[in-house]
């Protein structure tokens, strides 16, 4: 309850359109240790070890089918892992539904296809979870939603339905919707892959803004410009394994693994 109050203070008292990411309880935002996952007999994630500190920005890239999306979807349990440990800010993900709910409340997610709720207005999309999950009064939720819609630069679209917006606008609504839950960590699953080229920039700009505010972010993306600009680390995956993880500088200029070199030669022209 205390946290929500904090946000209201920020919206009313200080009108600056920036957020203070909710502080983590522990130093480690995300800890994956020896994570394995199979679809039937197909081994999609193989011995994944990855730790993300609070405030870190990780960009995950790799060819399609390499398990990038599966990995970040395991972080909020949209996918189940079958071996290993996943600990999100001190909470281990198991079959315990309470723990899963706890993690989902604090981890925001943005999808490739937005997954906005088409039968609700933009504002209702943003206030739904705060009202029902955080039990926030409607007026307060509206205020917070307006704040974040302003932040993603579409406050004037609040009363429209998602279907009336462009792809880029929809994706920004999706980001605002996730932010309204005041998350500790944000996951982005190929947020610009389904967008027209002209709309990629407006979404990336929003994400850069988030990164500048110190949000802990895991981003699956092939936007190498974005990666260079904001990532602390780039993780390259292939056939379910992490092949190479390094700072952007090292990753782009001195790739170590042959597979990485091949991948980079194909996507950097």
């Amino acid at each position, binding site marked *: 309850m205390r946290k929500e109050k904090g946000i209201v203070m920020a919206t009313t008292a200080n009108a600056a359109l920036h957020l203070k990411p909710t502080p983590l309880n522990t130093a480690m935002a995300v800890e994956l240790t020896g994570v394995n996952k199979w679809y039937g007999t197909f081994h999609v994630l193989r011995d994944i070890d990855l730790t993300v500190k609070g405030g870190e920005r990780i960009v995950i890239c790799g060819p399609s089918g390499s398990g990038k999306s599966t990995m970040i979807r395991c972080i*909020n349990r949209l996918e189940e892992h079958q071996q290993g440990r996943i600990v999100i800010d001190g909470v281990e993900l198991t079959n315990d539904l309470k723990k899963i*709910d706890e993690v*989902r409340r604090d981890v925001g997610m943005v999808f490739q296809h937005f*997954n906005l709720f*088409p039968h609700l207005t933009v504002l209702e999309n943003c206030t739904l979870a705060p009202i029902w999950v955080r039990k926030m009064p409607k007026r307060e939720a509206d205020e917070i939603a307006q704040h974040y819609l302003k932040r993603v630069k579409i406050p004037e679209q609040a009363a429209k339905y998602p279907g009336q917006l462009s792809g880029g606008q929809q994706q920004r609504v999706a980001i605002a919707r996730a932010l309204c839950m005041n998350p500790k960590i944000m996951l982005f699953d190929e947020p610009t892959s389904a967008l027209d080229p002209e709309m990629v920039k407006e979404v990336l700009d929003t994400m850069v803004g988030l990164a500048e505010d110190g949000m802990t972010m895991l981003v699956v993306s092939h936007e190498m410009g974005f990666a260079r600009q904001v990532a602390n680390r780039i993780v390259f995956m292939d056939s379910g394994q992490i092949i190479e993880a390094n700072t952007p500088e090292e990753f782009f200029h001195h790739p170590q693994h042959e597979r990485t070199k091949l991948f980079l030669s194909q996507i950097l022209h």
Partner: protein
Amino acid sequence: MTMAEGDLAVANIKFVRSATIDARPPPLAMSGALGWLRKNLLSTPFNIALTILIVLLLAWVIPGLAKFLLIDAVWTGTDRDACREIVQHREIGACWPFVWERWAYFVYGSYPISERWRVDVFFTMLAIGVVWLLWLGAPRRDLGSVYFFLVLPIASFILLTGWTRIGLQPVDTVLWGGILVTIVVASVGIICSLPFGILLALGRRSRMPAVRLFSVVFIEFVRGVPLVTVLFMASVMLPLFVPEQYSPDKLVRALVGIALFASAYMAEVVRAGLQAIPKGQFEGAMAVGLSYWQMMRLIILPQALKITIPNIVNTYIGLFKDTTLVFIVGIFDFLHTVEVSRIDPKWATPVTSTTGYAVAAMFYLVFCYAMSRYARATEARLAMSDRR
């Protein structure tokens, strides 16, 4: 020569409009009544053929109907003689005096005459409830649903069956009949089938094996037997297992049978809707932290039910007409009261049956068409979120 051609080409490429073209009305043949006719009735040869065919069909049906129901109809009389050609020496159409005399029976069945005001009060309360719930401009619609789903069923039950403590003499359901029974059976079926259907549909998609197995077995069993069988089992088989004094009332048994039957069909309708919702909607709802029931109630079902409205109403209309089958277990629904009346020797004429069935047809048509129209309006209203 070549130079001249080149000049011409350049001259054609360059073009700057100097004045705006004023808006003009469309050609007469494209607008107004004539345009409408052309566009809707005569647009293609196939369409023209259809139009002609339907005009011919109407020309064939309407005069006959009008002749029977209105022109040759008998409007007054006290017994069969008024409607007999041999007595009246003219062509006889519908025998309306038969309907006037039997109307009270069609509406109330054998409900005691001194108590029929209670049925009228029930009809009025139901009408208020339906309007309150379905009319979007009605005040306090939240209270309306409390009234409709809570107050109305309890009040109607007390009112219709009686409660000696408040001076309402008990009326055995054996005496109920006519439109009263049809409305009671249909409303109970319609109101119960949607929530039970939703639960069964969710159960069928559940990850819990026991819940899924129960739902599948129930749905497949009920859908696999005819309604007549369900009604028979409810009214004939049940008393074999349950001692007489504990066995519920015959009408209640039929109501339960109809409600279960309709729920199984509704479950499949709702499941089709759930199936059509993209996986992303479930994931989006889970990712923002909604629980299973919140996700279903706030995100999935509103969308699933919206796309299944045509099918839901289809099931409702089918159910409304299926209520006529309760006659098979000896309950006098509206159609059955017509059926009993038309063989009454007092009104035995060649046109009595046709008249009775015409009344029944009009009754069912009015109710089913009303449901259908309301559903269309709802669809149009909900389609607002699809507009671009």
